[in-house]
């Protein structure tokens, strides 16, 4: 296990510089909407010095005529302002002597001083300042327990699996800890053991703990090993140990075929059983009881991109809708959900389709409550490698709730994962040296370049 020295970078300074740069770009972009051609103020020379304009004020924008505005102050100063002042004094005097006493007496008599308050003594909310944002927030509220949209700090680090140079045709991977702000690798972990390589990783709860799955590098062995570890304050992995769970029969073959619940109690995986009929299974491990429940699938159902609700009761995955019947294998991938308390058996007997989309669903994940599914679909099915849309859907009905953000410049099949709070999504293209961090609350998307391409990631 090799861990490089901590990178001496001030995250606070880095983010401050990024904020300043964002400000400059935003101001410049907004200011560019005002161009000399769209300004409706005539040039002063046109109004102050050309006598003809005095007689043809309607030729141009009358409201902004320099001549008229020059004359206006006299009217304001000599007539309107004194009149307005007198009227204001009259209104105030009337209010103080007549209206206010009546209002106070009415309030005391009928409502005990809560006349202006709503149920439970709560003062009615004012008109929302930003209706568009409120509408989105009201939709998003269902995604979080109690309807409380989190405003958590974004994760400082994410863990990624990166491919290392192959030796003797044996695939090798390494585990790296990246700074979420800068994309730099702050620590790394070598192979888990001789003949094993990292295949998938998932965040385990909210305390910077992770679980990583490793599989055999070669040979007939069909097995998956799980390890867990935590990150220290500076991103250094600590507490590395095999995860004490029953043996998993099968081999995780997809980098996004591992998920953990937000409470850190449930682990879900999809693994091939390495049999001739190409069967695979979806499994759920309850870490507190160490009980395992599995559901079988057949090729080409291939569940991948697993996601669990925060309490681990609902599992979602992306897969082919053939349900393992070997029919319609060319049909585009859809999103499915499965109750984790469903009886073991064929997954097709228990799962339910959430949505499908033209061009297929690339990735999907559940909100902490499971009520909302965030799915990445191709915005242009004919060019799925250029732009993807992250959309929100009602998990129960599949009804689209709206576009969260367009994620551009990705390669085919990007993966994404969420943090324990369910507020931040990490998008990892898998083949290009960048990752994108999406804040679901603000819809802000930040792109960070990384020196080593992660083929799987979690935070």
């Amino acid at each position, binding site marked *: 296990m090799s861990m490089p020295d901590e990178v001496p970078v001030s995250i606070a300074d880095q983010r401050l510089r990024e904020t300043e740069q964002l400000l400059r770009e935003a101001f410049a972009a907004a200011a560019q*909407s005002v161009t000399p051609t769209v300004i409706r103020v005539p040039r002063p*020379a046109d109004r102050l010095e050309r006598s003809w304009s005095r007689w043809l004020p309607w030729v141009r924008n009358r409201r902004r005529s320099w001549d008229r505005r020059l004359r206006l102050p006299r009217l304001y100063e000599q007539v309107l302002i004194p009149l307005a002042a007198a009227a204001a004094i009259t209104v105030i005097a009337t209010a103080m002597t007549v209206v206010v006493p009546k209002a106070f007496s009415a309030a005391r008599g009928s409502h005990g001083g809560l006349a202006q308050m709503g149920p439970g003594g709560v003062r009615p909310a004012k008109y929302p300042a930003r209706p568009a944002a409120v509408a989105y927030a009201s939709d998003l509220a269902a995604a979080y327990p109690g309807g409380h949209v989190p405003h958590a700090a*974004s994760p400082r680090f994410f863990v990624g699996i990166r491919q290392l140079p192959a030796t003797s045709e044996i695939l090798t991977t390494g585990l790296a800890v990246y700074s979420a702000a800068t994309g730099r690798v702050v620590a790394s972990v070598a192979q888990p053991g001789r003949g094993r390589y990292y295949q998938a990783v998932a965040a385990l709860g909210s305390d910077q703990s992770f679980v990583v799955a490793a599989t055999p590098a070669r040979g007939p062995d069909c097995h998956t090993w799980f390890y867990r570890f935590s990150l220290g304050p500076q991103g250094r992995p600590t507490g590395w140990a095999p995860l004490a769970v029953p043996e998993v029969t099968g081999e995780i073959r997809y980098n996004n075929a591992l998920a953990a619940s937000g409470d850190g109690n449930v682990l879900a995986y999809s693994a091939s059983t390495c049999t001739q009929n190409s069967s695979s299974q979806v499994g759920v491990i309850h870490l507190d009881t160490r009980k395992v429940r599995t559901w079988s699938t057949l090729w080409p159902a291939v569940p991948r991109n697993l996601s669990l609700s925060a309490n681990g009761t609902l599992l979602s995955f992306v897969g082919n809708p053939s349900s393992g019947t070997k029919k319609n294998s060319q049909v585009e991938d859809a999103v499915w959900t499965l109750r984790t308390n469903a009886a073991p058996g064929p997954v097709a007997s228990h799962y339910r389709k959430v949505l499908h989309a033209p061009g297929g669903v690339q990735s999907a994940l559940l909100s902490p409550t499971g009520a909302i599914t965030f799915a990445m679909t191709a915005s242009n099915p004919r060019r799925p490698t250029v732009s993807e849309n992250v959309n929100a859907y009602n998990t129960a009905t599949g009804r689209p709730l709206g576009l969260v953000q367009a994620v551009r410049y990705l390669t085919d099949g990007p993966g994404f994962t969420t943090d324990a709070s369910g507020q931040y999504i990490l998008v990892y293209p898998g083949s290009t040296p960048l990752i994108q961090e999406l804040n679901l609350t603000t819809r802000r998307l930040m792109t960070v370049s990384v020196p080593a391409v992660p083929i799987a990631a979690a935070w």
Partner: protein
Amino acid sequence: MVTADNAGAGDLRAATRARMTVNAGELVGDLFEYHAVRLIRMAVLLVGDQSSAEDVVQDAFLGLYRGAARLRDPANAVAYLRASVLNGCRSVLRSRKRAWSSLIPTHDPPAWSAESAAMAGEDRREVLRAVARLPRRQREVLVLRYYLSLSDREIAADLGVTRGTVASTASRALAALGRELGEQP
């Protein structure tokens, strides 16, 4: 050619001094050519809509026109205009707050106009929305510092505060902005 956006301070001072002896109309006309667009852009960032911004800037130029005779050093005309625009923006926001406090937001960021929507991406619109939620003084400091690229000394002169106040206001604004944008500055 010197345009509204690329006119340097030296160009401006030279042009202004050259006009010291000419009448106020020509002085205002020259300054308008050089600075109207930039000032309107600044006002748009502060009040949120172009119409109000144009009114504010035009009022500032009218004020300069009326007070040109009292202007001791015409080279300070731009600083005077900038301060006038800032005051005008505050007046607009105050009047909106008085008249429409229960109906519309005091400051509608320029993030939703068709023009800026076409030019600014969602990230930038989000930044503008976050700026719009800041207190007025912090918003002014950010616009003066990051749009007009003024020094803290110039900002302090425009706002009538000390340089230390400018620095601390900017620091608080950036911290608040970082939090608004889901970051920890």
